[in-house]
């Protein structure tokens, strides 16, 4: 049974992640504890969820720069709603998801209807969402609601005192759902089709407009969900939160083996991209000797290293084939 070449980028990503984890473990044996593994999931839960949405957008050949701001907006929205109204958090969640989904859909509609580049439309969306959160409040608003305490304390204590938290599990569920949508539904097939070439996709019978709206709506939904997770994670809403998260998410998607030009990639790859980014962060914290500036440089260098390794690996397998 030979491996389908489609899988090479995904396998390369997973392989590199595993090797990197082993390298970290050799240096810091503690890295292999369930605590670190649990933290890796929990700390990157919001990133993983938003990256799933971003993966679909990128698979379609687009980009969504608004997600970082939308996460911040979500936190602020939830916090302010819970503070000022008596609504139950679940109701607020539903409201929020409706708002962010509609926001994404609106961006998709503008992108398709006016044939404007996604980069610019979502950039304006990024300003807008951040601006909207400032208009709700400029302070950080704590969330004090018994239901939130429940959510925060929902975890399963793994052997070795690691915690598998609700939001960590939620991320895995989101990845699974995203993978199903991308690879096992007609909507997903249409996303890939648009990424492969909009013109061709249209000729093959894809309703490009509706699909584009759907894609950005999905990304908006995921950003909202990520905002909920982030608000559970931090227990507050803060208009300055998650600045630049869109770039981290894009980097994670790309490390996960999805082509920025669209049409090729795996949602599961994104999970490993996110975990790789988390691993870099964890490694730097464990090391603990890097100054502020060396931290930035090392993150960049490791990012480059991953991309080069991936390209090298793919090139070698391509030569073999």
């Amino acid at each position, binding site marked *: 049974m030979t491996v389908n070449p489609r899988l090479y980028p995904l396998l390369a990503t997973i392989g590199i992640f595993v090797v990197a984890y082993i390298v970290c473990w050799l240096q810091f044996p503690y890295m292999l504890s369930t605590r670190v593994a649990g933290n890796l999931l929990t700390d990157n839960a919001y990133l993983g969820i938003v990256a799933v949405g971003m993966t679909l957008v990128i698979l379609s050949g687009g*980009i969504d720069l608004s997600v970082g701001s939308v996460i911040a907006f979500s936190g602020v929205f939830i916090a302010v709603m819970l503070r000022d109204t008596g609504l139950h958090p679940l109701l607020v969640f539903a409201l929020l998801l409706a708002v962010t989904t509609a926001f994404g859909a609106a961006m998709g509609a503008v992108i398709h*209807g*006016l*044939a*404007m*580049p996604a*980069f*610019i*439309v979502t*950039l*304006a*969306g990024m*300003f*807008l969402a*951040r*601006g*909207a959160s*400032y*208009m709700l409040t*400029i302070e950080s608003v704590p969330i004090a609601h018994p239901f939130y305490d429940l959510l925060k304390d929902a975890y399963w204590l793994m052997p070795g005192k690691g915690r598998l938290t609700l939001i960590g599990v939620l991320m895995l569920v989101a990845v699974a759902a995203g993978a199903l949508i991308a690879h096992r539904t007609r909507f997903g097939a249409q996303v890939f089709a648009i990424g492969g070439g909009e013109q061709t996709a249209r000729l093959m019978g894809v309703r490009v407009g509706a699909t584009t709206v759907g894609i950005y709506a999905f990304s908006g939904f995921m950003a909202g969900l990520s905002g909920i997770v982030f608000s559970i994670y931090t227990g507050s809403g803060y208009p300055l939160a998650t600045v630049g998260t869109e*770039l981290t998410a*894009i*980097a994670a998607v*790309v490390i996960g083996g999805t*082509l*920025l*030009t669209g049409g090729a990639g795996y949602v599961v790859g994104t999970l490993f991209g996110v975990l790789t980014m988390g691993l870099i962060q964890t490694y730097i914290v464990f090391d603990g000797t890097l100054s*502020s*500036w*060396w*931290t*930035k*440089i*090392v*993150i*960049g*260098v490791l*990012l*480059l290293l991953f*991309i*080069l390794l991936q*390209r090298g690996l793919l090139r070698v397998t391509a030569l073999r084939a």
Partner: protein
Amino acid sequence: MTRTLRRILPQILTLAVLVALVSLFFPQFLSVDYQGGRLSGPVIDVLKRGAPVALLAVGMTLVIATRGIDLSVGTIMAITGATAAWALASGWGAAAAVLLALMAGLACGVWNGCLVALIGIQPIVATLILMTSGRGIAQLITEGRILTFTDPGFAWLGSGILLGLPVPVYIWVGTAIAVALLMRRTALGLLVESIGINRSASALAGINATVLLIAVYVASGLCAALAGIIATADIRGADANNAGLWLELDAILAVVIGGNSLLGGRFSVAASVLGAMIIQTIDTGILLAGFPSEYNLVIKAGLVLMVLLVQSPNLAGHWYALRRHVRRRREPAPSDRSAP
């Protein structure tokens, strides 16, 4: 000449409308004073404050014309500013500092260009690497503090006055004209557009796409270096942490408002710098109008969207289609009735 004018007409009109709009909130927007050998007034401020974004937009235009994007320009500003300040602080002269800063910008451009053209990493990701790690390099140079200097010659580049106008205005206008001439008086413009539209066909036609690609990133790096020099000279200190922060987004916005396609190809440097002026007019207008700062972003987003909507070529098409649709609805097709 008239062709150029026709190309930039939408941008000029947008700018005019925007100025009118700002004047509603701040009536003295167009007033210019002359005192003590210098012109002053909001418009002069726009011209001067717009210098960094305009310079970045010049380089970004070329990169985008090749179907690329350069996210690292803001960071390059920080690196070059830090380099210049370091040079001045270690007692080199202003000229040497400028030269060193330009060299740093050039090096950054070569780095980006090689990642994109030689290794084949996608531009967004390739420049994202320098965007994140470069600020660390800049901080390494300044050790995280604001590296100040007193050299009046260097400071003149940021806040000096020449014939009544701020020096940065001359720098960005001069750079824009020089680059535009370089592109249009030589064959460079055509070759850059060609590789942006179809790199493989261009390579087959014998164009050295690799070298050209590296060259546009170098140009972008050099423009960012100039912007970094101005920003540093302006406050007489290099702020590695904040110099040029998020300016790459403004620069990309300027290029797009200038009517250049993110998919590469035909470009106009003049339209891009007009785009930069449009953005700066929005920014300065917001400051002058005196709204609370928490509204800044929403206002900016709203105005930018408006500008883009108005300039969208598709909008006219949609109007047309809508009108036709309505008309067709009104008169049922005669064929429908005659159908058996």
